[in-house]
């Protein structure tokens, strides 16, 4: 039996699709006819989404039309996968929630505003996560989702097993973690830390912001194991509702000796951007959620 999949891409970069298409397993499933891509404007010809077994949604919900598109698409699928952190949590485009939409468009285009021509979809007030619009079967976070997680997802789709995510943090799979975190005296901004940081030692221990403790495992600590602090792309742990709050919690465990507290803000210069780089629309800041969801109801129902 062929598994038909559809990929609906919203405000996206195509990195999720590329990550999928770069998996040898996935390509083999297509070549062998086990999986058929029934719809994806990036990868195949079909202009309309037909009924599919599994619908992958990638990208952020950025316009009113994105909302209509996913609602319509969700009716044609038996299973819905929120694929990638943009879909799960809003992703980096979600940082746009700190800026008024008029300013986002005006800041890029000046006085000629394409959004006013009536030919193009207008920005919604806020970027919102997919699950605030439709019911999602599987959340597959990551920017892009890491190979072991995609592998597990494919395995579950092909063999009809449940797909599960880990429930622990990146630190649990990080080769740099020796479980010997001590209070740090000197918080260090990532830029300046580059001058003498040891990229083979726990970054937090060196006073450098690493999102590991507040970020879901699954990537086998890809960035830290290759010399970079985690920037949190896998999003929060299962029971969390706010990755930034979790990180502040974790930082209080290592930065508590630092005085005055302003020194922490010199190192973590842009707390909203750095602590919720991928998850601002999924945070507990109620305004985004309330206004965003109200807009969904008004515009799309």
């Amino acid at each position, binding site marked *: 039996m062929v598994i038909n999949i559809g990929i609906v*891409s*919203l*405000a*996206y*970069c*195509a*990195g*999720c*699709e*590329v990550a999928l*298409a*770069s998996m*040898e397993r996935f390509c083999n499933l297509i*070549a*062998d*006819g086990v999986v058929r891509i029934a719809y994806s*404007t*990036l*990868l*195949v*010809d079909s202009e309309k989404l037909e009924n599919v077994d599994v619908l992958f949604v990638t990208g*952020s919900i*950025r*316009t009113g*039309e*994105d909302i209509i*598109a996913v609602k319509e698409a969700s009716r044609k699928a038996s299973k819905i996968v929120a694929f990638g952190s943009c879909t799960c949590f809003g992703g*980096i*485009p979600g940082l*746009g929630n700190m800026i008024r939409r008029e300013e986002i468009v005006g*800041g*890029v285009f*000046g006085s*000629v*505003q*394409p*959004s*006013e*021509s009536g030919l*193009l*979809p207008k*920005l919604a007030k806020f970027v919102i996560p997919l699950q605030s619009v439709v019911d999602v079967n599987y959340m597959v976070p990551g*920017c*892009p989702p890491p190979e072991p997680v995609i592998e597990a997802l494919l395995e579950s789709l092909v063999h009809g097993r449940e797909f599960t995510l880990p429930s622990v943090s990146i630190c649990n799979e990080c080769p740099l973690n020796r479980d010997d975190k001590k209070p740090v005296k000197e918080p260090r*901004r*990532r*830029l*300046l830390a*580059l*001058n003498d940081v040891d*990229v083979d030692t726990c970054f937090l221990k060196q006073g450098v912001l690493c999102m590991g403790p507040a970020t879901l495992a699954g990537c086998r600590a890809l*960035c830290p194991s*290759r010399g*970079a602090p985690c*920037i949190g792309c896998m999003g929060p742990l299962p029971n969390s509702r706010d990755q930034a709050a979790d990180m502040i919690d974790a930082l209080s465990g290592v930065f508590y000796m630092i005085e005055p507290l302003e020194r922490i803000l010199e190192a973590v*210069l*842009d707390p909203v*951007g*750095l602590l919720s*780089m991928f998850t601002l629309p999924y945070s507990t800041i109620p305004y985004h959620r309330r206004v965003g969801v109200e807009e969904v109801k008004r515009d799309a129902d």
Partner: protein
Amino acid sequence: MLIEIKPVTRIEGHLHAYIEIGRDDVRVQLRAGGFRGFERILIGRPIEEAPHIAPRICGVCPVAHHLASAKAVDALLGVDIPRAARIVREIMGLGGVAQSHLLHLGFLIYPDIEYGRGSDAYSAPLFKKLVTLRRRAVRIVDVSGGRHVHPFNAVPGGVLKLFSREDIEVLKTEVEYGLKLLGEVYGDIVERVEKFIEDNADAMPCRGVPMAALAGNGKGIEMYDGVVKVVMDNTNLLFRPNEYMKYVVEESIDYSYSKRVYIDVDGVRKIFRVGPLPRLLTSQEMPYDASRKFYRDFELLNSRWPLHPLVYNLARIVEIAYCFERIAELLNELQNVQALPRTKVELKEGEGIGIVEAPRGLLIHHYKCNGNGVITYANIITPTTVNIPVMEYDIREMVKLLIDRHVDDAENIKRRILYLVRSYDPCVSCATHTIHIAKR
């Protein structure tokens, strides 16, 4: 007659083609959607985060955005990166170009050149071989960039990690294997691409539009550094990256989230082309065996259909070979270079411009930051933004010719338009770096 292609398929991003064929004229609009506002999102962020955030503009060419961004930050902080770091970055860039070209060849344009086979195309042995070949390029970016989609190894002042001894072994093996596989499929691919061009090139415009690419000192194609070379009619224009604002003008239009970009010389604005075709035609002789041999085939094809957009498809294949061969040379050079990953950086107020050759052509990142290292200004010009007006021009000329030749069947015209657009391999998420179209 009105032809609307909604959406244009097998390209990256959200693009609608709108073609109005009137009695005397043909009106063409390529409407790019998918605006996300990256230039605005970057403002207020720490300068060192730009190379993390910028790749998210595009998952097909994240390496190019990562490198252009890192180069802009280096320039802004006034640092020269160590030679070893530069080599690691260049290898990452070359791997990125090869993997993107192979995505185009193996997925986006593939069913067009395998025609006759339709949806059966994926069961053809060539598809599996292309997947295996592309995997080599993906591995190269994994090793040099940390991860192939959204790499992170380039940082202000250099790279986080240089190659370990095992890394170098892996890279050498991948390059060798890649060239071997490319040699095996080359004949099959060229045969298909030539037939594709032969069958579809007749009614296409071949007029010269100015073209631009990076130019270095050495032989071959310059992907990472150098000056910008613009070739127009009979004159050449050379300018340094930090002079781009003098010659490159952007203009917002009301029907698309992609701006129009012109080259401006003495007040005369012209649209121009970038990408593999201009890169090959402005480059010096290929210094390596495989790419030199492939380049001859390319020259032959280009002499039959000079500057034809469909010839982009063969140009990409020459570049794939060049990327692998250049990586092999850089790996050799690395043995004699001091193993220093980064130059020291310090905070300063400044302005920086970084230009690289992305898979689709010139990519410009331009930032300003305050004394605290916070971004206050960001401008990004992507190759697809540059190419979209040329595509519109090409479509208009082609449709006029087709109508003159009494080809007025909408399906046929539509197919030709798709072939033309796909040959440019547009990356619309880059062009709008910024939202999205799903308008019905």
